[in-house]
């Protein structure tokens, strides 16, 4: 095991412009927002992103104008409505969109995790989202016609997680919300950057190895980022920040207003400093929940 603890800024600096980045989390939960904000600070540009159900991450990257394409199953704000910046950017044709339904998107990441160039999927004929790079294949045993999707091959995968050791072993709590694809995204990642709420001693990980869902062998860099999913939630740690989301959505009605809002978000200069200021203003403690 090697020490992979890396400052957030250095980890993000390793993501080249023009690369394809898989972005973890689902809906408002565990979006890697500290990493995404740092991408915007550093001006990494022309990214192609792949997501499961995205919200804040896709919307902020769209607002920053750094997207070349998006592929995924959903971008929206769940309870809170549509994703204002993402929606506008798509309507203005600022980047290309590859819609995928859940089984096809899962198969893309599973193929990568299984070391295969493609996976067959049970076909869903006649829908819009199969127009993007789906091939027909035939089962050699039954003759059944199936669809095939290629393995997802993002150059970089970014996830936010609960806790990990400095070697990059990432563990979940025994009770959690598992409605996402982070595990499979990690398994198939080529280069994996994970931010975590907390760095814990290796002994704590080693005492319960079944809770490690991402092994250090898959992780290239692990970064500490307390409240790294803010203003989204990190289940068992904190709920989403409803007040901040409403500010976000209100600002999102107009591009210039959101640009100002985004400027404010990125001010501070670093994630650590931003969280320190918010914590100082007591804005974060009310969001915290206790682990079971």
């Amino acid at each position, binding site marked *: 095991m090697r020490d992979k603890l890396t400052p957030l800024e250095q980890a993000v600096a390793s993501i080249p412009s023009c690369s394809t980045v898989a972005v973890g989390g*689902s*809906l*408002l*939960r565990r979006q890697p927002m500290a990493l995404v904000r740092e991408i915007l600070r550093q001006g990494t540009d022309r990214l192609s992103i792949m997501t*499961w*159900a995205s919200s804040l991450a896709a919307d902020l990257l769209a607002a920053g104008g750094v997207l070349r394409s998006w592929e*995924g*199953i*959903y*971008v*929206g*704000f*769940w*309870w*809170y*409505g*549509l994703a204002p910046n*993402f*929606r506008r950017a*798509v*309507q*203005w*044709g600022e980047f*290309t*969109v590859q*819609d*995928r*339904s*859940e*089984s096809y998107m*899962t198969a893309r990441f*599973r193929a990568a995790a299984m070391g295969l160039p493609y996976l067959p*999927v*049970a*076909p*869903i*004929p*006649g*829908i*819009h*989202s199969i127009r993007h790079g789906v091939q027909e294949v035939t089962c050699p045993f039954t003759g059944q*016609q199936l669809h095939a999707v290629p393995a997802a091959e993002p150059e970089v995968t970014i996830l936010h997680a609960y806790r990990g050791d400095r070697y990059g072993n990432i563990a979940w709590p025994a*009770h*959690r*919300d*598992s*409605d*996402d*694809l*982070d*595990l*499979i995204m990690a398994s198939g990642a080529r280069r994996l950057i994970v931010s975590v709420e907390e760095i814990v001693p290796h002994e704590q990980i080693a005492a319960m190895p079944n809770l490690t*869902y991402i092994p250090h062998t898959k992780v290239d860099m692990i970064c500490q980022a307390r409240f790294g999913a803010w203003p989204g*939630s990190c*289940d*068992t740690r904190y*709920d*989403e920040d409803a007040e901040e989301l409403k500010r976000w959505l209100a600002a999102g009605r107009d591009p210039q207003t959101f640009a100002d809002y985004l400027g404010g978000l990125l001010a501070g200069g670093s994630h650590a400093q931003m969280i320190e200021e918010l914590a100082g203003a007591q804005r974060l403690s009310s969001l915290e*929940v206790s682990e*079971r």
Partner: protein
Amino acid sequence: MSFTTNELMAYAVSRRLRSEDLVFIGVGTAGRAYTLAVGIPLVASRLAQLDHAPDLDIYLGNLLSPDLAKMPTQLTQDAITRWPGAHAPADIGNKVDALVRGDFTVSFESAAQVDRWGNLNITAIGAAEAPDVRLVGTLAQAEHLAFVERPIIVVDLSSRTFVEEVDVISSFGHASTQGSRRQLGYSTGGPALVVTDLCTFDFTGQGLMRLNSLHPGVTVDQVLDQMSFEPVIPDQVPQTPKPNEEQIKLIRNEIDEGQALLRH
């Protein structure tokens, strides 16, 4: 005993649910959309459990059999995380497999557009690329309409929603200009029922939407006023069955005591 439209809708759904069903409920958006996508399905499922389908099973998000007797009054992230339930697999791939294998018998669908064949659009209004309005994407709705036995569409009737032909086919109904379900290679499924605030629809053998029942006091003309296409209208259109007093009390006093589910 009087009842609200939401209560009638929930009852109309619950009558279609059976004890052996495994029902998929998604995690819809806010306000009225939440009532349609989550509130009515949850109330209907719980009512079915208490009324005639004691073994009915629900899958919500990535949680199997959440304890509906302990339904959180507000679905914050933490309330969902802590909701007791039978099974929450390690990732969502497991649920996707169950869907594709045909394990789910009922699912609930919302959409911005529904057409006469039951095609659904949650992707975009206008062209899919550079559309007039970008919506949310695809999710697993396409899988629902492909692999679930009896998907139920729950939407309010409106001529903007009930369109001649959806702009983008996110999820395939009974037919499209490309052909019928069978011609395209689907073996089963497709939307079984549409429950709206004015009436319910089912589909003909040819896959055309057909008026199935009118809510009390609603006329056929009122329905047609709220649609951009004309559904099949049988000679006799029955009234949507009304919940009885006991069922209404169950909804109000036990299932949705905090009015979180049918508020909007």
